[in-house]
Each structure stands twice: as C-alpha cells, then as structure tokens.
C-alpha cells in the first residue's frame, strides 16, 4: 500500500455531482498531476456525505478540513496553499467542522460546549451501584494517596492552596474549615456531609449522590484523615430515596472492600460512615440545626460561637461540608491545587454545578467554570427562553437568594460578583423566569416558603417573615397602601440583623432584590391596583384590543369559561362577568391583541369596591411604634 501524505475525500454523491463536482474533480486530478503529487496525495471519491446543500464538498485528512461549495477556480489555491505549503485555505473552509450524518457533535452544541465536568466527571458514565466502575475512573486513588503519602498538614495545605470554597452556598474556604478542626484537641471528631438539599429548584447534590455516591465517601475519607476523625455521617433528606439507597450500597461495598471501616487499604487508618435520614425540614440544612437533628433532637440552630469546627456534633470538633464540596476533593488531592486553579477566578476557583429550571429550554444539570457570565449559562447552555417569551429574571440561591434582572446578566458567576447584585451563588439552584412572572408574587412565594420553614426559635424570623408575608399578601390582593414598600425594606433590615441563623438572615433577600430591580411593579400593584403580568387575579382586567384583533379564534378556543365571543372577521370580546383571569387567552394570542388592564377597568362589575377591600387589609403591628 502506498503511503500518502494527505487523503482527500471528494463527495461523488448525486447532490454534489449536480452541483458540478465532476468538473471540480477533473480540475483537482489535473492540478495534482501537474504538480507531481500523485504519490503523496490520495484522492477518494466517496458516496454522499449528506452535506448536499453545500456541494461540491471535499474533506482533507489529517485535520478533517472541510471545503464546501468548491468551484474549479478554487482548486489551484487549495493545491498550492494546503497540499503543498500545508496551510489550509481559511477562506474556503466551512465555519463548523463537517458532521457525521445529521447528529451534531458535542462541540457544536452550546449545552455541551461550555461545560467542564469535574464534580460531575462520572455523570452518566458509570454504574453507581458498582464500586469497580468508580475505581476504574481513578476512584479511591486520591484516598490512597492521602492515606499513604500525605500528612494531615499536607492535605490541609493543598486544600487551602486550591481555594475550594463551600459549594453549599456560604462559600467558606474548605481548607480553613478543616484546619480549624484539625487544630482542636478532642478524643473524638466528626466529619459530616450535608445532603439536605432544600432550595426549591435545586437538585445538584441529589444527582451526585445518586450517580456517583463513592466520590462523596472518598471526599469524606480524605477529610477524616486531615482532621483526625474516625466517624462520619451523611445527612440526607428522606425524600431522596434513590440517593439513600445508592449511598448505603456504596458504603456497604466500600466496607466489604476495606475502603471504609478498620485499617483502610491496609494503612492502619480507621474511618466509618453512617447515613442519617432527615425529615426534610429546610432549617436542617443549617449547620448547627443539622447537628442537633443528628443528635436526635428537634432541628433548631444555636448561636455561634463556638464554631462547629471546635464544638459541633455532641460537643466535639466537627467538619460539615456539602456533597458537591466533597465531590471536588479527590480530584484536588490527585491533581494538585494548581490544577484546580486552572479554572475559575482568583477568589472563586474551580467549577460550580448548577441546576437549571423554570422558563428555560434545557432544564437540567450543568457544570461550568466559575467566572462565566450568567448570560452564557442562560442563553447558550440553557438554550434561552422557550415559546418566544422574553427573559425577565433569574433566581439564584433559592429562598436565601435573589432575582437578577436582564440588565445584570453579564455578571460573572463568582461568589463576590453575585453577592454584589443582592443574590447569592447559593447551592446552585437557578430558576429562570419569563415575562409572565409577577415579581411581587415571586417574592411572596419565597416568603411563604420561609414562613413555613422557619423553625420558630427566634422572633425576628418567626414573626418577621410572617408579617412580611402578610404585607405581600395585601399588595397582591389589592389592599396595598402607600408606605408598604418602605415598611418591607425596614423589616428586612431588622430581620437580617437580628435573626439567629442563616435562614432568617437571608430570608428577606428575595423581597429586597425584587424591590431593588422591579420597584415599579410593586408601585403599580399598590398605586394603580394593576398587576401588568396578570398573575394577581384581583389586580387585572383582560380585554381585547379590537383594532389589533385578527379574529383568529385562538383565544376563544383557549378560554375555559366560554367568556369570549366573536365570529370570523369580527373582533373578539371578553365577557368580564365570566372571566376568571386564567391568562389562557393572553398566553395564546399570537398577535399581542389580548391586553391586561388595571383592576379599575372592571369596577363596573360586581366586585368589592376599594373601600371594602381596604377593610379586609391584614393589619400588622409592624411600623406602628409603641
């Protein structure tokens, strides 16, 4: 067989032939012959390359350089520049590389292109129930390295250098946490894993525990060696049955193989892990409440100091890290802190896993280098907003976070930059909202959540969030009054300063950020009794702009109340007495003819008047003074 320097695949399919590939082919052979390259270049005429619209096409190997829409006159340049001088002719090259068949490659799909998998490196690759598969992907190699080659000081040093920060939300440097605990003297120390993922719309930790449970165990073993602990607990919510089952299986397998228990890997190191199932109270994700719950008591936080690193579970030094944090540890130990720092920013090193949900095309789990702008996550990886609707805000950090508006979408995702917007990176829940969302209602939704989940120990949180919720209820039901916004802001400040734990200290964030970025929505609710998105049923009137109406009948068919009348070519009309403000007509209309007016537009109907409404206002003591 001849040894060719280059191979040229020229398409000889019908499409390319019709587009003139025969003359191009002749020109190519002619040119190759003229230059005496017959023994160096192998030209193969292939069957259809399914790029018919781009024909005549040819691909040159090595390099997979793809030339579409070739003309005879281009051949001279390709042969001269590419074949002889080795410089592919960019002018003629296709912008994207050719695809095999119609299935795109990962690098062609933004969802995959911008992701880098570290914590999720085994995502969808290994069978979570087989320890061997984990080991085959370098599993437990880092634990072996930490147990045999490294001192606790070296492990902590590496962790500190890596700049890994707590992925549960607070972003505390993991190395520092470990160091503090390592220094504490005690007969027993504990390593805990926080799998009590509770933010609405967050499922990063669940996915790691389900898909790659051993990485959590390995991270904990390394942490145990660093601080000198022999006992660990994984706190998982009982609502994650699959995670519990797979973690338990992983623990059993690790024990059987001498990777947990006594004398791990024959190194003399002892460490054991147990699972503790939480009942799903949101507050139990807070470190001190989690520890109390683990002790068998009611999950409630306690004041700090003393820090848990010194006095935690059963009064012993305790390190608590989040699932994703542990998932990062083995790779840091294996590849070093410098490797970890190759991605991310100076203060926010590495990658972060996010759970995308809400009004976004690609709902799912992603991992990106920190520092990536929000816009790229939402519009490239997330694929933008479905149904041609407009982006309105993205909610980060769940009930402790806030809503970031369109104008701040270029904010890079780092702990500091997101904090500046008033939201937090949080554990990684990212809920995208479109223009159908009423921001006052969104704030109310989160407050409802915190009212429900407040443990009730400290009054600022227990009463404060309830009062704030009442005010929001007033606003969304047409009983808002001047001064309500200021009162909300005032209360927020008090709750943030005076609450005992993170739950209360962050609970007002959703309200504060929506006031900050969408104040005009609050104002129109209060002053004009007008919810412009039509979410607050009491504060809107749906009507059809009869000049714009094309009488297509979509709204009429969508209406569950038969409230819309109209014929072909006759503009449609909504019967207000029947309308239940379900928004079906508004969402369905393709011509933007359905409009949302203020409440006053249907005052003629038998609605309670404003005075009657105001009498129903929930009165709070807030802001009343002595």
């Amino acid at each position, binding site marked *: 067989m001849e040894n060719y320097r280059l191979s040229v695949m020229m398409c000889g399919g019908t499409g390319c032939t019709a587009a003139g590939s025969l003359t191009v082919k002749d020109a190519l052979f002619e040119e190759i012959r003229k230059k005496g390259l017959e023994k160096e270049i192998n030209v193969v005429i292939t069957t259809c390359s399914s790029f018919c619209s781009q024909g005549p096409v040819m691909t040159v190997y090595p390099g997979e350089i793809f030339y579409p829409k070739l003309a005879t006159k281009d051949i001279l340049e390709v042969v001269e520049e590419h074949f002889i001088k080795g410089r592919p002719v960019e002018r003629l090259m296709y912008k994207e590389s050719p*695809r*095999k*068949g*119609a*299935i*795109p*490659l*990962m*690098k062609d*799909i933004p*969802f*995959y292109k911008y*992701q*880098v*998998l*570290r914590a*999720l*490196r*085994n*995502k*969808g*690759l*290994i*069978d*979570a*129930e087989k320890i*061997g*598969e984990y*080991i*085959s992907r*370098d*599993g*437990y*190699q880092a634990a*072996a390295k930490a147990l*045999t080659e490294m001192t606790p000081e070296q492990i902590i040093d590496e962790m500190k250098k890596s700049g890994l920060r707590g992925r549960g939300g607070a972003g505390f440097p993991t190395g520092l946490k470990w160091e503090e605990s390592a220094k504490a003297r005690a007969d027993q120390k504990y390593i805990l894993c926080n799998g009590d993922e509770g933010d609405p719309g967050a*499922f990063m930790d*669940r*996915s790691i525990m*389900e*898909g*790659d449970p051993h990485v959590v165990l390995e991270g904990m073993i390394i942490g145990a060696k660093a601080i000198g602990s022999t006992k660990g607990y994984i706190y998982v919510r009982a609502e*994650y049955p*699959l995670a519990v089952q797979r973690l338990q299986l992983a623990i059993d397998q690790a024990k*059987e*193989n*001498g*990777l947990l228990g006594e*004398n791990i*890997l*024959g*190194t003399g190191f002892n460490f054991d892990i147990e699972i503790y199932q939480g009942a799903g109270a949101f507050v139990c994700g807070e470190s001190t409440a989690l520890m109390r719950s683990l002790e068998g008591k009611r999950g409630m936080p306690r004041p700090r100091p003393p820090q848990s690193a010194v006095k935690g579970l059963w009064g012993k030094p305790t390190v608590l890290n989040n699932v994703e944090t542990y998932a990062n540890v083995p790779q840091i130990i294996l590849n070093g802190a410098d490797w970890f720092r190759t991605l991310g920013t100076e203060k926010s090193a590495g990658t972060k896993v996010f759970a995308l949900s809400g009004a976004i*095309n*690609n*709902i*799912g*789990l*992603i991992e990106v280098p920190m520092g990536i702008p929000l816009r790229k996550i939402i519009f490239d990886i997330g694929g933008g907003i479905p149904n041609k609707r407009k982006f309105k805000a993205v909610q980060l950090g769940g009930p402790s976070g806030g809503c970031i508006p369109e104008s701040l979408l270029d904010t890079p995702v780092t702990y500091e930059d997101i904090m500046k917007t008033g939201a937090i990176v949080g554990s990684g829940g990212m809920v995208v909202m479109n223009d159908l969302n009423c921001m006052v209602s969104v704030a109310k939704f989160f407050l409802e959540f915190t009212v429900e989940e407040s443990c009730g120990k400290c009054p600022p949180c227990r009463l404060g969030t309830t009062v704030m919720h009442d005010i929001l209820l007033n606003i969304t039901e047409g009983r808002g009054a001047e001064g309500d916004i200021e009162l909300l802001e005032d209360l927020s400040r008090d709750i943030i300063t005076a609450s005992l734990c993170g739950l209360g200290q962050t609970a007002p964030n959703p309200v504060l950020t929506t006031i900050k970025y969408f104040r005009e929505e609050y104002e129109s609710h209060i002053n004009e009794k007008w919810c412009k998105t039509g979410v607050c049923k009491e504060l809107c009137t749906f009507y059809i702009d009869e000049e714009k109406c094309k009488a297509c009948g979509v709204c009429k068919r969508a209406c569950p109340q038969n409230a819309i009348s109209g014929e072909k070519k006759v503009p449609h009309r909504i019967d207000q007495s029947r309308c239940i403000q379900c928004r079906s007509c508004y969402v369905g209309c393709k011509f933007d003819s359905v409009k949302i007016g203020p409440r006053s537009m249907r005052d003629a109907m038998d609605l309670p008047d404003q005075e009657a409404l105001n009498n129903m206002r929930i009165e709070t003591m807030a802001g009343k003074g002595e």
Partner: protein
Amino acid sequence: MPRLTVEDLKKIKEEYKSILTLREGGARVKVTIHMGTCGIAAGARKVMEALLEEKGKSGVTDMIVTTSGCAGLCSKEPMATVEIINESPVKYVHLNEEKIRTIFKEHVMEGKPVEQYALVMGSETAY
C-alpha cells in the same frame, strides 16, 4: 470480597478498564440507560425493560446494557447513550419503548445511528 490494598486498587482499575472500554474480542457495543430520579420519573425503567427484552430475543452476546445516573438534561429524559467500538458515543433523548426498540434494531444491530432520536455525538469534557 477480600480487603483491598493500594496495589489492588490499581489492578481493579486496569481490570475494569478492559471490561468497560470496548475492545476487540470483548463487547462490541454498550448501551447506558440514564436512571437518575429524573430518568426514572420520565419512564426509563420501561425503556430499560424493552431494551433487555429485545436483547434477549435477538440473542446478541457482544452487547453490554448498563445503567447510570442523571445525564444532565433532565427535561429530555429518558436518555440513553449508545457506544459502538471505535465510534463516538451517541446520546438519545425523549425515549420510549418503541424508540429504544428501533435504536436496538438499527444502531446496535446494524451500526446505523437513528438520527431522528439522537441529540448529540461524542464524550463530554472532563478534567
């Protein structure tokens, strides 16, 4: 199983590598059904059962069927990845029993990826 030492870890790693990565003489094709909570909720179990049934009926021996966790695109579950020796893995989305049977027939048996059900080809970047 015996207690492992550091040396054993390396051996297991090599052993499993040869099982998991498709090699000449071993399995020719591997199908991974993504069975995280999202996949299961969307019907991955039925997809898995249908695939196993097809496999049983055909009597193929050079095929591995395995499960794994969430593949990251929860809104497009159930998902499966089909990897044929020396070829890029192909990810299929929005599967049901009928689709996986077609994929089994055309991709697994005949080596022709089913373009209309496929989302993407290739492996994700991990480092």
